């Protein structure tokens, strides 16, 4: 197509005519110029009225976020390090903070920290954008945590219960099953109307791919969003990812849905933030982390909670420790921020106790309020039994002869530990857990060889479900064991144990 010079001149005169009439809508854009580029960040001269956290647009197409403001200079970290930026390039303010796309379209998708899909399944059709940094709900807007979020892991649901709206930290050494607990929790939300958001920060791409494949296979991707800022992402993307995941979760919470957000893991998040802060020459503090590393996580996790208006956001942050040292800087920060922790012990893991939850160091500050009455009834004094068992176990290793009571406690503790072992991707429903705990509480498992404890307990649960479906349903609906239900269960248990082990005397006391 030939461009005529006369046409171009007339276009020019048209734009000048509009100016001459004094159009109010014609505005000057505030700009800056790049004076230094390096390390995925640029120093910009100008942008006098820019605000912290504002999104800026480079003339070459790159985008960045302002993370440092000085009198005439500001530091902008690039969202995409692969788009080149040249010195003296013009940078425009966009006038708005960084926002990500949110909406139901994200369910089943894998996106990066800026909300761009990376699963190859096409673009998002959602038009709604929300800022990643928002003010947290106030005290008046919140509701107490009183509804259980079932993880499907008996040891967690029984002893370290998590409620909807709670923040429960998962802490442990490398390869102790932290991600496994989070994934099992996600898998257990199938059919429970809970939206899950899995945020991978600094993970290997192969790991993320494996997790996505697993979620897809198990049908969990139908209610899960995966936000991935893997190890190859820039420090800025790893810094933004947890906030992006929380924003996605908050969108669903605002629709009165229950949401679970898993942050895997926040140690990598802190490292990314440290990198950004050091590049901005902020003074390093303890372990070279910046002074506001606590605020980095506290403002993230305070966004979780249950709202009076409906909807909840439960957070499961994960943190990795080195050498079982829970007194390190970031883990202690997170322990103080969250409403409890699930501590995974390497020794237990190596001894075959999986999930390797160290019950003595794990706690849920919400406690019984996040348990159904049935589970609460069945787990009364269970923690004490486990504590006594652990104490006696240490003592028994000296080889001295123990009295009969201590021996019985040891045997009982061993049964408890055995019962709480659970294979990965094999979650239990709440009623199945109650039935197993019932057997334990009523001492039906005391005569069973340790190796058969889990098999017997599971078979009892499926026996009740198939042969006594009404009773099963009653427990499920009422979420409590009433006296008549208790009596019925006793009878069924005696009958079951007789058929399972007819040569052994069944004594429910």
């Amino acid at each position: 197509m030939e461009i005529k010079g006369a046409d171009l001149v007339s276009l020019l005169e048209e734009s000048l005519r509009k100016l001459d009439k004094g159009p109010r809508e014609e505005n000057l854009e505030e700009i800056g110029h790049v004076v230094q580029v390096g390390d995925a960040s640029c120093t910009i001269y100008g942008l006098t009225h820019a605000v912290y956290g504002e999104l800026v647009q480079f003339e070459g197409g790159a985008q960045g976020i302002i993370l440092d403001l000085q009198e005439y200079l500001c530091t902008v970290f690039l969202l995409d390090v692969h788009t080149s930026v040249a010195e003296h390039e013009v940078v425009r303010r966009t006038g708005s903070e960084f926002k990500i796309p949110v909406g139901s379209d994200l369910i089943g998708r894998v996106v990066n920290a800026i909300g761009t899909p990376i699963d190859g399944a096409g673009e998002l059709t959602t038009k709604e954008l929300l800022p990643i940094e928002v003010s947290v709900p106030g005290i008046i807007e919140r509701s107490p945590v009183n509804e259980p979020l079932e993880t499907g892991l008996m040891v967690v649901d029984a002893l370290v219960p998590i409620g909807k709206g709670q923040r429960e930290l998962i802490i442990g050494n490398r390869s102790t099953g932290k991600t496994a607990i989070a994934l099992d929790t996600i898998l257990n939300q199938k059919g429970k109307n809970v939206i899950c958001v899995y945020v991978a920060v600094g993970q290997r791409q192969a790991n993320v791919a494996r997790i996505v494949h697993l979620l897809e296979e198990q049908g969990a991707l139908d209610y899960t969003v995966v936000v991935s800022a893997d190890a190859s992402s820039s420090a800025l993307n790893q810094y933004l990812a947890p906030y992006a995941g929380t924003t996605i979760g908050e969108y669903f919470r605002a629709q009165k849905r229950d949401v679970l957000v898993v942050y895997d893991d926040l140690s990598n998040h802190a490292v990314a933030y440290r990198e950004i802060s050091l590049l901005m020459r902020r003074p390093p503090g303890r372990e070279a982390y910046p002074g506001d590393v606590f605020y980095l996580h506290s403002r993230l996790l305070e966004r979780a909670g249950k709202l009076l208006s409906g909807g909840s956001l439960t957070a499961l942050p994960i943190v990795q420790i080195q050498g079982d040292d829970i007194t390190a800087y970031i883990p202690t920060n997170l322990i103080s921020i969250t409403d409890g922790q699930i501590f995974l012990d390497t020794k237990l893991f190596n001894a075959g106790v999986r999930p390797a939850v160290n019950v003595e160091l794990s706690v849920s500050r919400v406690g019984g309020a996040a348990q159904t009455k049935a589970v609460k009834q069945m787990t009364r004094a269970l923690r004490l039994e486990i504590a006594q068992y652990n104490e006696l176990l240490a003592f028994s290793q000296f080889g001295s002869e123990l009295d009969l009571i201590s021996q019985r406690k040891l045997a009982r503790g061993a049964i408890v530990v055995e019962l709480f072992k659970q294979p990965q991707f094999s979650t239990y429903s709440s009623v199945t857990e109650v039935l197993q705990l019932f057997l334990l509480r009523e001492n039906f498992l005391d005569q069973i060889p340790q190796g058969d404890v889990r098999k017997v307990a599971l078979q009892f649960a499926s026996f009740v479900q198939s042969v006594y479906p009404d009773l099963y349903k009653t427990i499920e609906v009422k979420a409590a064991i009433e006296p008549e239900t208790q009596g019925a269960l006793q009878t069924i248990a005696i009958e079951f144990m007789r058929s399972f082990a007819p040569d052994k005397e069944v004594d429910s006391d």
Partner: protein
Amino acid sequence: MDERVSRKVLTIARALFAYANPPFDAGILMRLNMFADMIRSYQGRVLVRRVVDIIAISKQYSLDQCRFDLVAQLLEQRSQLELFPALVEQFSKLYAEKHRVMQCVIKSSHNLTETQKNVLVRWLELKTGKRVFYSVLTDPALIAGIRIESDSMLWERSIARQLRLLERSL
């Protein structure tokens, strides 16, 4: 120039500006820019009495009132004369800020008539509330349209801009 040095230059420029307090002069910004460019290219050559030459050049550009002689001597004593051009630039920006002067470059795809330039300048002065001093360039890369750029503001209506926006959206 790293951040610490930039801050030092800014501090010295502010102190000098507060001391010299030059009155408004229509051509001073252009002369300051030319002076900075001259010193920058001048410093590429090795000469014996550099400060004396800097002072002589500033007199040639009628910049005595800016008192660059004081700062040049100070920088030479501290062997930091290489900061001088940046200091002059900073001084020029402080001058523009104080006297509400805006220097801009008007680029257009085709030559502008005087009337057209006046329209642009009048609009800019209305919009910014500043006195506008401009230079005009022809830039065929705009294809059609105008681009007005200063160190802190930009206005562009051109086909090149439309194409950039289109490329970004695709």
